[in-house]
């Protein structure tokens, strides 16, 4: 066994899933914010549909990531202080939770407005809540709030990765980048 497991990289699949998720959630946040004020039009209907399909995709990808992480555990954390390790662990857990909760809140919100989510226009997701205006207003607030927390956490996550790379000069960021060889790594 190598002495510094922290020099290990994430697997190719974990890296691909991470960056795909990153791309999808940033795109979907932008899409979500821009579609709401649009006047009713074919574009608006398409954007809403894509927003829901992307969200559902993120939900599915997240379960795939959790499953893959179970099969191929993440490399051990890079050396850092105890509180930093705890903070990193907590924020990663919260990110995973939000990647599941944000799409679920959107799905329930859509149902409560009377619009079923049909993934890719083919696969209907069940309506778990009834169409109800009061419920819809509450679920909208939940969806927006969860997104706000997710956006803040993504910023913290990004800032921490940059700090590890430029200030601590460790491999925390590089081991999640595709196609980069680690300095001093045998891999």
């Amino acid at each position, binding site marked *: 066994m190598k002495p510094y497991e922290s020099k290990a990289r994430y697997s190719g699949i974990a890296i691909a899933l991470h960056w795909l998720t990153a791309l999808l959630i940033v795109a979907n946040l932008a899409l979500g914010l821009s579609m709401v004020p649009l006047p*009713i039009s074919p574009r608006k209907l*398409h954007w809403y*549909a894509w927003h829901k399909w992307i969200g559902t995709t993120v939900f599915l990808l997240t379960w795939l990531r959790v499953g893959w992480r179970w099969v191929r555990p993440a490399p051990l954390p890079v050396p850092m202080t105890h509180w930093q390790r705890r903070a990193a662990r907590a924020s990663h857990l919260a990110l995973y939770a939000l990647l599941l909760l944000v799409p679920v809140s959107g799905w329930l919100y859509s149902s409560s*407005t*009377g619009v*079923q989510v*049909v993934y*890719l*226009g083919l696969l209907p997701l069940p309506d778990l809540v009834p169409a109800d205006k009061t419920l819809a207003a509450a679920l909208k607030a939940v969806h927006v709030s969860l997104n706000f927390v997710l956006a803040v956490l993504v910023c913290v996550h990004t800032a921490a990765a940059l700090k590890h790379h430029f200030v601590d000069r460790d491999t925390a960021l590089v081991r999640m980048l595709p196609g980069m060889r680690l300095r001093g790594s045998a891999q």
Partner: protein
Amino acid sequence: MTMFLRSFIPSLAALLLAATNAGAQGLLIDKSEIRFVSKQLGVNVEGRFRKWKANIVFLPRDLGRSKAEFDIDLGSIDLASDESETEIKSPLWFDTRQFPVAHFASTSIRSVGGDRYEVAGRLTLKGVTKDIVVPIALKKDTAGNSVAEGSFLLRRGDYRIGEGMWADTELVDSGVVVRVRMVLPPLA
């Protein structure tokens, strides 16, 4: 006098017939409904009309005298969304300012066996009149009322509903399923 009688008797007969029709088969309007389902990008969108009038005479033993007429207030559409309701009244869809009412009048009602019937008639919607056939099934509810349920597929393009930017049937399906449920008090 004879002239008076000649004109009076038929009018009286017509009046009596109309009264009988109205009295005998007053539709239970609160239990009756006109609903529809359209499809947007694979998602079923349901709606109904809040206001409509019907004149229904349904005599299973005298289908020749049976008829069904509807006037549907298109502006009373319920789509559970104010935004959608405003849009669908606009010129590209129903254009309710020019065409506030949809009208259906049966031309014939025939039995197709058992409790099944076919109502043929003409539907006028947004200035377009087309012949349609609505298959219906007759049942009794627990209160002994007669419940006639039927549905038909309306091609929105036939009536210019959803024109211009909305014509794309990949976005909004061309087919709209219209469901009618009419509840009549027990037939004599």
